């Protein structure tokens, strides 16, 4: 009778206690001074090496469609990618396909580029927001000036120093797609054939992208905050990915423990009933 009460009490535990356990786990893990060496998967190494292979002065398109809802996953990726591009002295342009993504990426890019002495208009530019990614990518594949017209500060594309010698996406070396949604398929479907793509999805979208990695439609991928940590490790920097990774891995341990605990309680309750 006592055991039955215990197992059924375990299975009927108030969900608010579960929430509290999760919160305590995360707070504890964030404050822990533990740093574990990452395992660098081939996709992350390939991502890093694709940017490393570029030459100073090459131009990269950063497609930044993320907003506040996926801040914790995409912001570490965005910051690490921009730091890498600036370290390699690459030119880059940013474009957004949702309204909040425009301001978030522009404000963040302004802060990061100021730290590295990059000048907007000269070394980098933001093309603002366009609602339809398919039309934008298809249009930019032929003529960026006609597809985008001007940057976020209303400077015509032809007058931007960063766009000197660049007419269309065919002149770009690489696209980095940082996104929580399905923008990758639009880039793959409508970009110029030889334009390389590397991908920074949230973890939810990552599992579906392995098929694109296998067919070499994307050359590398960093998955969420965890991928950002591995990428930061390759870059030798400490960013948000490094700060989050402890909490990520110990939350996984917690959730696995509780799944097993829940199943064990169910099993024991069944046994004690029979």
């Amino acid at each position, binding site marked *: 009778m006592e055991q039955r009460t215990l197992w059924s009490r375990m299975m009927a535990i108030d969900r*608010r206690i579960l*929430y509290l356990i*999760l*919160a305590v786990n*995360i707070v504890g893990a*964030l*404050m*822990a*001074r*533990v*740093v574990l060496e990452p395992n660098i998967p081939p996709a992350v190494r390939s991502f890093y090496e694709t940017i490393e292979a570029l030459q100073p002065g090459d131009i990269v398109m950063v497609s930044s469609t993320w907003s506040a*809802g*996926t*801040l*914790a*996953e995409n*912001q570490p990726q965005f910051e690490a990618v921009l730091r890498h591009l600036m370290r390699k002295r690459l030119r880059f342009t940013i474009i957004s396909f949702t*309204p*909040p993504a*425009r*301001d978030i990426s522009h404000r963040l890019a302004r802060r990061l580029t100021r730290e590295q002495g990059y000048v907007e208009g000269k070394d980098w530019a933001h093309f*603002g*927001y*366009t*609602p339809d990614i*398919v039309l934008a990518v*298809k249009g930019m594949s032929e003529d960026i000036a006609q597809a985008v*017209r*001007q940057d*976020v500060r209303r400077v015509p594309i032809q007058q931007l120093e960063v766009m000197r010698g660049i007419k269309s996406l065919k002149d770009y070396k690489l696209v980095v797609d940082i996104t929580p949604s399905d923008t990758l*398929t*639009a880039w793959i*479907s*409508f970009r110029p054939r030889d334009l390389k793509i590397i991908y920074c999805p949230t*973890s*939810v979208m*990552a*599992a*579906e992208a392995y*098929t*694109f990695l*296998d*067919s*070499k*439609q994307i050359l590398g991928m960093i*998955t*969420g*905050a*965890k991928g950002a940590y591995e990428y930061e490790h390759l870059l030798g920097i*400490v960013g*948000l990915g*490094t*700060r*989050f990774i*402890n*909490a*990520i891995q110990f*939350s*996984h341990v917690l*959730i696995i423990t509780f799944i097993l605990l829940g199943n064990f309680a169910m099993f024991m309750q069944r046994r004690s009933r029979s």
Partner: protein
Amino acid sequence: MDWLLAFLPLNFERTSIWIGAICTLAIYSILYRENPFYRLFEHMFVGLAAGYALGPNLVDVIYRFWWEPIRQDGIWWLSFVVPFGMYLYFIYNEKYGWVSRIVIGALIGASAGLAFQAFSSRYLPQLQGALSKVLWYPPNSTGEIYISTILNNWIFVVILLAVLTYFTFSFEHRGAVKRTATLGRWLLMIGLGAIFGNTVMARMALLIGRVYYLLDSWLMVRIGGG
């Protein structure tokens, strides 16, 4: 005492951080139970999100792609675009609502027309990738292909065919086909398990980001990790 002075909202930056923390805690109050505090901030969020989109849509899109080409480049036919697009807003009218379907039809037609290019660019390379898997040592191979690669390729092809069989509904699954489809269903669970694992990581990361903001920016507690 220094910490307390730095913590309190005594300047614009700290006040802003406090407002952010209050917004965060107000939303988290739903975890305890439904309350008016949560409802207030929820409605504020919806209003802010809807209001924010107006700026970029009006200025970054309509001004950039409509007003300025008409005014600066003299592309006069563009004048018809916005009135034509405004037909969409008749959807709320019972009598004239059908005219919105003209614009919807144009958008759907455009998406459908673009689907051919999307199909060929997206799926044909994947089909090619699947068909070009090396399943045995090619003639004149110089030892660059390992047995593990060949084994993995066989596994890839078997899984692909099994899962495709499971998704084939044109005929009844019987005998060997049924067993293959069952295998496909089990293997599909592997893909779903991978998705589940990654989904858990994604959601936890979003929560971790919020807790990090509360600890680092608001409470100014030192965070570990690097």
